[in-house]
């Protein structure tokens, strides 16, 4: 009996995942093949690959560290304030703060931290943290009343409530918040690098040609695309599939 009930859902989920997966790989194949043709045609002949790879890795490293800090801050803050009466005070405060344009605060970051790695990382944190924070807060606030009651009745109170109820409840929200946050994070870091001319992908493309399309800029964009694709396929896609499988209604 259970086969009749469970398999169609699992199959449907699996089919849609396979479709999305195929489409993503197809897009990547088109990019790689195009890159190969450009390479074979000598289009990338003048690209300074060591400098480019170094710049891309620096930017990726900053993003990874900024994401790590943002996810810790965003999830912790949401879990702490999300289920108590404090949320009524903090929600509008967070809403105002997240609406401040990140780059408007950029001079403050430079003032306090100088033109350093830390400055760019913390600046990125200030952008990445909001989608994660709001996704988790929304998940906690929109949890069904009965599920909250069940957690309370069966003993998930105080700190146990965070660890055994709110944290797993928020898992899909952390995923979606992270995906949005990282997309914003790329923009923040590259933008900050362009403005501050700190080494990294942003300053690399500024140096090679800030206005026009040239082989070095195209090669850089391809490198970033490959990293984004790899992270998407190797990290987010499997986690989203698992989340969809477990959290389906």
């Amino acid at each position, binding site marked *: 009996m259970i086969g009749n009930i469970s398999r169609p859902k699992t199959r449907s989920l699996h089919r849609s995942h396979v479709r999305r997966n195929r489409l993503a790989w197809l897009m990547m194949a088109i990019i790689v093949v195009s890159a190969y043709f450009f390479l074979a045609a000598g289009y990338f002949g003048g690209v300074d690959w060591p400098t480019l790879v170094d710049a891309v890795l620096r930017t990726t490293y900053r993003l990874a560290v900024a994401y790590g800090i943002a996810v810790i801050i965003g999830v912790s803050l949401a879990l702490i304030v999300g289920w108590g009466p404090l949320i009524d005070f903090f929600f509008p405060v967070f809403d105002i703060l997240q609406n401040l344009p990140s780059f408007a605060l950029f001079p403050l970051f430079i003032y306090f931290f100088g033109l350093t790695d830390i400055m760019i990382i913390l600046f990125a944190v200030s952008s990445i943290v909001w989608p994660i924070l709001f996704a988790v807060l929304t998940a906690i606030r929109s949890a069904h009343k009965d*599920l909250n009651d069940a957690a309370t009745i*069966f003993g998930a109170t105080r700190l146990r409530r965070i660890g055994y109820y709110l944290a797993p409840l928020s898992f899909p929200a952390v995923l979606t918040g992270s995906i949005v946050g990282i997309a914003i994070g790329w923009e923040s870091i590259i933008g900050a690098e362009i403005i501050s001319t700190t080494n990294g992908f942003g300053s690399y493309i500024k140096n090679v040609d800030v206005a026009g399309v040239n082989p070095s800029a195209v090669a850089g964009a391809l490198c970033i695309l490959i990293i984004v694709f790899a992270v998407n396929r190797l990290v987010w896609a499997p986690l989203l599939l698992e989340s969809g499988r477990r959290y389906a209604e």
Partner: protein
Amino acid sequence: MAANPSSTALVLSRVTAYFGDEKRGESAVLKDITFSVPTGAFVSIIGPSGSGKSTLMRVILGLMSASSGNIVRNFTKPAMVFQNYALFPWLSAIDNVAFGLKMQGMDRKERERIAREKLNQVGLTRLERHFPSALSGGQRQRVGLARALAISPDLLIMDEPFSNLDTITSEALKTDLLKIWRSYGMTILMVNHLIPDAIELSDAIHIMSSHPGRIEKTVSVRLPRPRDTRSPQFYAEVDALTEAIREIS
């Protein structure tokens, strides 16, 4: 209705509750609720939608506070079965059942043994590793019942446990519930809106009216157990209760 702490699991005396702020003139959702539940009895509360039955259960469990009145709770381990199951979607059936035991700090081996035993009692042994999304409504409700039984409750509150189930599943679950009630000897307080179900299962039935929710009448069911739901006496009880509800509404 005299409250004797040794023989009553629960006594409510003139309990009134508001959803919003009483001082702002918001109307009461429960008004002067007075009744008691003898230890080991099966008591039902029936009434129309919106009469505050579920709110009353939340007040009894301390999930919502009463504005006035007294509640004597002669139970230490309450459990609840929910209308919409309220299973934790990220946990398998066995982990859902073991949730309350985990919150009590029981070690994994022991809690899984107990959870397996309870799943066996409700006929779901083979499905212990399935997630709720892979279970039918009836199977989910059985997991919900097993989760409640796992903590060996002395008061089991059931909020319309059969209303989302088809007739066949509901009949099977009622039979299992009566068996479990007899073997555990616990007190059961069930919210219901189906008159035949209330007559079949209960020792006493409290009839609620709405706006505000109040207990209008209490009916004792004196049919011998096991009850024959096709006997003239059973139909007579159903007719009498239907008439009582008509009079009230």
